[in-house]
């Protein structure tokens, strides 16, 4: 081969190699994500505040139990791995009138605006008292119930006479006001 040909051949090889010898350059970004532990509860009544009235209706019969389902509990929860939460209820203020019993049960959370691990409902209804927090919903994980008026866990209060202590029932001229406290806490 003469000089011109070998130079041309070298140039051709170099040109081909240039096409394939492209440097790869990568960049990295490193950042930290923090998910906060969240544990929030609130409530509302709709369409009106919770109010119950016991009265005789049928002669000879005990006063009939009455129910109110105007109260809703709303929850937002982010739980660490392995933890679940529960909602408990207790009478915070006031006394249930003598000779009567006040019961409470929750319904499963409405599905429209909620998502996540909304827990399981405790059944049957609990009898509210002033001495011990009682669980009404358990095994809540990471979830939210929604914030509209009818979102969340619908609570039903039932007020009924205590058959064995019926003679203790006393009529009152005014209403008896109770305050019920709901707490969301670790269920483990």
């Amino acid at each position, binding site marked *: 081969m003469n000089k011109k040909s070998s130079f041309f051949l070298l140039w051709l090889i170099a040109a081909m190699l240039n096409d394939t010898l492209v440097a790869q350059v990568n960049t990295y970004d490193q950042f930290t994500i923090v998910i906060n532990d969240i544990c929030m509860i609130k409530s509302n009544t709709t369409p009106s505040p919770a109010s119950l009235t016991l009265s005789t209706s049928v*002669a000879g019969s005990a*006063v009939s139990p009455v129910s109110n389902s105007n109260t809703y509990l709303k929850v937002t929860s982010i739980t660490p791995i392995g933890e679940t939460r529960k909602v408990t209820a207790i009478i915070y203020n006031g006394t249930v009138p003598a000779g*009567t019993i006040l019961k409470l049960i929750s319904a499963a959370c409405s599905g429209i605006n909620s998502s996540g691990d909304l827990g399981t409902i405790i059944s049957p209804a609990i009898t509210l008292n002033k001495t011990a927090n009682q669980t009404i919903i358990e095994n809540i994980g990471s979830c939210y119930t929604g914030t509209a008026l009818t979102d969340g866990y619908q609570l039903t209060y039932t007020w009924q006479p205590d058959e064995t202590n019926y003679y203790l029932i006393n009529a009152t001229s005014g209403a008896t006001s109770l305050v019920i406290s709901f707490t969301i806490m670790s269920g483990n």
Partner: protein
Amino acid sequence: MNTSIRNLTLLSLIVLTSTIVCAQNNNAVTMPIQLNLPPSASFSLAGEDVRISLDPNRGTEQIITPSTVGKIWLNYSSIVAWNSTNAICASLSSGNLPPEVVIKLLVGPDVSAGSGKVGKPMGKITLTSYPQTIISGIGSCYTGQGINKGHPLTFSWEMLPEYESDILSLEDLNIQVGVIYTIISEE
């Protein structure tokens, strides 16, 4: 961006997010509920109308009719305020009762088919057009509904000693009387 600026940016991000990591403490809420218990009472009778028949063989003796036990029952429900009780009164209403004829009412004790503080009967009374207490001391209670619940009512009638058989012929009489019951508060 050179390495030192990028590292500074990352460091400041980590520091800033650390200050936002705090525990949420809105984990309790309270809700009011109102319970209303007004005084109330209602009562009713259960059973059949009472028919009292004349025994023609008795003549001028005072006539005691067959017992009406088990025919009429008085049921009631009552919610009373503290230290208050109700009572039930009875009186004769309309009717064509001759003056020589007397109707008596005996209320038996409650048969314990219900619960609570039921009332006590007052003993046998002679019914007049003026209300008389037949059951007293009714607290918060209920007797149960229907026959064989509550208090049994026994009616009887008598002829007053002044009865003269040739003037008044009982066979011709077809006496119907009404009895009014009222429930009142015994405060």
